[in-house]
Structure formats: C-alpha cells, structure tokens
C-alpha cells in the first residue's frame, strides 16, 4: 500500500464522514449546506484516489459548485436558517437512528467480510488496460456504451427544467382559475 494513497484516503474519508454528520446535526441550514459542500468535495478527493480524475473534477464543479449553491440560494431566499421548533417526534429520530445504525453496521460489516467483487461475469484479465478515469475514457463510455442513458438524462433535465418553470411561475392569485368555475380537481 502506498502511503500517500492511504493518508489521502484516511483524511478525506474522515472529513467526508464528519461533514456528513454535521449536515444532519446542524441547526443552522446555511451551515448544513456548507458542510454538505465539504462532504461532497471530500468525496471528490476520494474519487481521485480511485483513478477517477475527471469525475472528481465534475464532483467539485457540479455537486459542490452548482447544487450546494442552489441550496444556499434557497435557504437565504426563504431566510429561515434557524430551526426554532423543538422536535415533537423524538421517538422517531431514536427509532430511526437505531434502525439505521443496525442497517449501516450490518451492511458495512457484511460487505467487509464478504467475498471481494469479481465473482461475477466480468473477471479482470491481465491484458486489460488499467482504468485512469480521464475525460476521454469517460466520453467513450458515455457515447459508445451509454448512448441511450445519455439521451434519457437529457430528457430528465428537460423535464426538470419545464417543471421548475411550471412550479415557480408566479401568477397573480386566481389568474389560473377562471372566475366562476369551481372545483378545480
């Protein structure tokens, strides 16, 4: 094991986990969003150690850049970053926590103890070219293998765009409803 790799893995995974915990425990929504950015960036660093350089870049740009900014934007727009109310359904959190921990511990332990990947159809042969995760490799995979999936993703984005416009369109109250017509389903 190469030490730089291990060190890098240790630091960024610890950071990612800590940040994730922070996301779900912070009372201030702005802080939560910022911690989310930290978690996502640390995951991006983990990608680097997994020879997925292009994905790491995308992770930082799209996830940490665009998505977190979107979150921050909405939090600030609504201006309700503090969680005032006390939790009336604490039992839910407790039960959920317990179950989730059982779940997490179980899966993690089982997967650690289980057989390594590679029992399936694809068995790596020595002749294979090692994966480097460059933009070129990814582009080939997307356009040669996942062409259909790529098209579907474009449709998903189209639907989301149209939907957000429909939902966010500000019409004066009652303008959508023709006066005199009742019972809009």
């Amino acid at each position: 094991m190469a030490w730089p790799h291990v060190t890098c893995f240790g630091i960024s995974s610890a950071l990612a986990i800590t940040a994730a915990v922070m996301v779900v425990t912070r009372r201030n929504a702005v802080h939560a969003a910022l911690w989310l950015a930290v978690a996502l960036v640390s995951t991006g660093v983990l990608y680097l150690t997994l020879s997925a350089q292009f994905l790491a870049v995308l992770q930082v740009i799209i996830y940490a850049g665009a998505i977190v900014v979107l979150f921050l934007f909405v939090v600030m727009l609504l201006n309700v970053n503090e969680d005032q109310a006390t939790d009336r359904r604490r039992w839910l959190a407790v039960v959920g926590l317990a179950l989730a921990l059982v779940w997490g511990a179980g899966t993690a332990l089982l997967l650690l103890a289980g057989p390594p990947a590679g029992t399936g159809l694809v068995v790596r042969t020595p002749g294979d070219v090692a994966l480097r995760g460059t933009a070129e490799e990814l582009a080939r995979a997307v356009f040669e293998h996942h062409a259909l999936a790529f098209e579907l993703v474009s449709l998903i984005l189209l639907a989301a765009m149209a939907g957000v416009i429909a939902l966010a369109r500000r019409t004066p109250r009652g303008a959508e409803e023709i006066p005199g017509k009742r019972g809009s389903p």
Partner: protein
Amino acid sequence: MDFLWTKHIWLIPFWPALGALANGVLIPRARKTLDVVSTVAIGSVAMSFLCTVFLTAELASLRIGNPAPVEYFRWIDAGDLRVPFALLFDPLSATMCLMVTGVGLLIHIYSMGYMAHDPDPGRFFTYLNLFMAMMLLLLLADSFLLMFVGWEGVGLCSYLLIGFWHRKESANRAGLKAFLVNRVGDAGFLMAMMLIFVTFGSLRFDEVLSNAAIRQASPTMLFAITALLFVGATGKSAQLPLHVWLPDAMEGPTPVSALIHAATMVTAGVYVVVRCAALYSAEGAASALVAWIGVITALLASLIALAQTDIKRVLAYSTISQLGYMFLACGVGAYVAAILHVVTHAFFKACLFLGAGSAMHGTGGQTDIRKMGGLAKTMPRTTVAFWIACLSIAGIAPLAGFVSKDEILHHVFVSTYAPARTLWTLAIITAFLTAVYMFRLFALTFHGDEQAMKRGAHAHESPSVMTIPLMMLAALAIVGGLALGLPYPPGLHLLNHFMRGWLIIGRHHGAEDTGGLGLALALAAIALAVAVSGAVLAFRFFRGPYRRVELLQRRLGFAYTLLSRKLYIDELYDIVIVGPAVGLSRLAADVTDTRGIDGIVHGAAAIAYRAGEGLRRLQTSHTRVYALAMLVGAVALVLYLARGMLF
C-alpha cells in the same frame, strides 16, 4: 337425421336477454308502463319456454346417448386455456330449463298483478328477465367457465332484486349480506375451477367429466375439487354454514322470493353437484360430506322453521330444509331423485310463496302469521292452492312432494353408504317436522281462532292474474310427482327414463338392489304415516286459539291437558313434541344463526374493521413515519436476503 332445433340452443337464453335489453334500455322511459314492460317480459319468457319445449321434444326423440355440445364461437383461446362459447342441451339441462322457464313464466304472469302498484315495474322486469337469461346460461353452459359467468350473473341479479325496494334499510342490508355470503361460496367455486384446470388442463365438461380423465387425477386433488365445488354450492344453495343470507333475502318482492330464492337460483348448487356427479362418484369422502351437510341442514332448518312467525321466513327455512334433502340425495348417489325433488319442489314451493304473496297482497302487506288468520273465508282460491302445496311439501301421498321425497328416503335407506340408517332416521324426523311447521303455518294463516277469523274478514281475494298461476302451480304440485317419477313399475319413471344417460354414473353408492317392492311400500307407508300424523297434530293444535301456544310455552298450559281427552292428546303432543321442539328450535336458531354463525361472521367483520381502523391510523400523514416504514422494510429485506450469511 337433420333436426330443426338442435343447433339453436342459444335461443333459450337469448329471449330473456332480449327482453331485459328492451325493458332496460330500448324502451324509452316515458313508455315504460306496466302493460308494456310486463308484456315484453312475459313474452320473452314464453318464447324461451316454447324453445325449450321444442328442443326437449327433439332430444326425447333422439335415441342415441348424450348429445354433443353446440359450439358457437371461439370465446377464449389463450395459450393452454381454450374454451369455446358452447352450449349443451342434454337431459339434465333440459329438465332444469323446462322447470326454470315453465315456473318462471307462471311467476312472471303473477308478478304482473303483484307489482301493479309499484312505481318502477320497468326496473323490476328488467332484473327479472336478466336473471332468467343468466340462470339459463348457467344451466346450458358447456364449461365451468361459462357456468361461472351465469353463476355470478344470477348472484348479481339476486342481489339487485333483494334490494329492489332500496328505500328499505333492511332490504339494502339483506342484499349486501346475500352478495357477500355468496362471494365466499364463489371463492370456493373459483378455486375449484382453477384446480380443475390445473388437474385436467381443460374446463369443458366433456373433457373434465370423462371417466378416463378422472381416473388419472389424484384422489387428494379430486377431494379438493369436489369439496371446493361444494363450498360454492353451499353458498348458492344456502346450506350450512352459508345459509344465513336466504332468510334475510325475503326482503325482496315476493315473486322474487318465489322464483329466485325458492324455485330456481338456489337449486343451482344442486345442479352443479349433479352435473359433476362423475367427480363426486369417484370421490367417496366428498359425497359423504355432501350427504351429512345436507341432512344436518335439513333437520336444523326445519327445527328453526317451527319457531318463526314471519310467513316468508318460515318458507325460507323450509326451502333451506328441502335443499338439504336434495343434497342428501346427491350425497348417496341418487342424482335423479335429487333432480326430481328440485322439480317438484319448484312446483310446490313457488305455489307456497305465491300463495303467501297473495295473502300478503290481500291483507295489505301483513307478514306476521300471528296477526293473520281466517283468510280461508275471504280468499278461497288462495287457500285451496296453499293447502294443496302444503299437503305436497308435507309429503302426503300421492302428491308431488311425497313422490320425490319418498324416492330420496328410499335411496338413502338402501344406500351402501355406511351410516345410511342414521341418515334415514334424521331425514324421516325432518319429514315429520316439515309436516308440523307447514300445517302450523297453514292453520295460523288461513284458519285460526275467532279473533283471527275477524281479522281475515277484511281481506280480499287477489285478482285472477295472480290466482290463475297459483292454481296452475297447485295442479302441478298434485300431479308433477307421479307424472315425472312414477315409482312403480320402474319403466314408467319418466325422469329416470329421460335421464338414462345419467344413470350410468348415478349408481355409485346408491345400491343397485333397491330392496324390492315390499321394502319400498313399507318405507312409503312409514313416510306417509309420519307426514299425516305431523300434519294432523299441527293443524288441530294450531287451529285453536293462538294464546294456547303462548301459554304452553310459558308452561301454563297444564289446565287444558286435564280438561278434555282431545286436549290431552294435544297436550301430550305439546309436551312431548312441540315443547322440546320449540325449545330446540330456539336453541338451533340461536346457535346456528344469532350467536353461532352470524356471530362468527359479524365477529370476523368486526375484527377486520378494527384492524382496518388501526392500519388507517398508521397513515398519520407524517412523511418521516412513512420513511421509517420504508427503512423498516429495507432492513427486513436485507436481513432476509442475506440470511444465508447471517444465520
């Protein structure tokens, strides 16, 4: 030889269906007067009856075995399942169809008078015609699948007609109860049908019911199929423990009770068992089950009938009891006797119901027999018809009821089925009780004490459109038995002769040796003696003041006993028979109806409702709770699928 009618079986259900279509949809609402709709309805049933007669005539002249089914079009042609739309007109369905269309025609005519003042005769006759079409489809179907369509169809119509007066809350509840209890039976039928398809790979009668196919099936599977079919039959034919809907079904108009809940639909269960006689004959255990359920139902229902005070409910329990006889006959392999009883029962029971309807019509809708009485003077024609039907059902020779019942009793007695004597004893007790409750009913309704006579003076005789069908049914109730099933000499048993194709299988554990003429006469004499004594005792006792019965029930009637010898006999009868019988019938009514089966049904329903309410409360509208449920599910899924590594 080329026959004129053979290919046109479809005409039989077609006419009523056309009538229903006309009355329901085609005729504009404004023109739906009683005259128009009843003419259409009666005409369509008459056409159907005529077609049946012609077809039967041709069938009788056809001297070769059983006729083949007639295929009309490819109905379901899907993978392994190939079921054409085919109809079968063999002696069994011919007999049943003649009965259904004939009795149905008379009841349709009667309805014209009975429903004269109803605001919505169009709907009534539409349902009634639709019922006829469905019933005939059930009887003529050549596959379990098509039969099931008719089976569900008659259930639907029955439900619609029970709840016909939908302003009555009780009618709605009764309709609902009928539908739901029938669904339980239908579930059994459906399961049986699937098992048949799995076992035989077909749903057509000729492929399933052939001996070669049956020999290859495993006994367990045969038992499952026959038992499940019988569950379906108990639902439709109101046998224990699914009989609870029939008494409530009397909420419907009386012609409906006569047609559907006495003469035709409720015999569909018997028809199914007879149709599948080949299966039942091959499976002894299921036949035994049929026989026992039949005889127990017959006995308990007749006990309950003793204590009823509503005229239609007495008749309803009597129907249940008579259906029990039919199943008893099926259970001992006397299938022809069962069908004979179906036919004669249709005659006298329809007559009884129509008579009851006429009495209710004359008294302005009274159904409580304690408040009737003395109708004999004012409604003579109804009284005579009712009296004849009573004699017939009670089993007085040589009326129709005697002939068919005696044939069943005879078959039960000589059956090689082990506890045949026990079955016979129970059946003869039932015969006695039948005579008692029928003449109790007759005496209280049409005779009774002086007070009752006064009440009866206000009644009026029904119009002849009602009494003529009544008279015709009464005539049939007299001669129907001897005409169709003359017991001796054997060659003149018309139904036996007609249904000879069925006799091949109809003698499985019904013994070949009938014990000779001597035994037959002895058994007939016993049955007749029992019936006569029951009828005479009941009539004499209940003709007196009704108070006496009540007093006796309160154990205050000892004074009467000591006064006269006459009364002493009555009293003896009261103490020995009526007292315990009343108590027993109360008990039976309580156990089987109110607390027992109804209790279980209602209890189960209550539990289901509670559970539903609880589950609904889980639906708290809180997203996080929903997410938690998903997580619980996910944990369970992973634990289950990874169980190989965990445990």
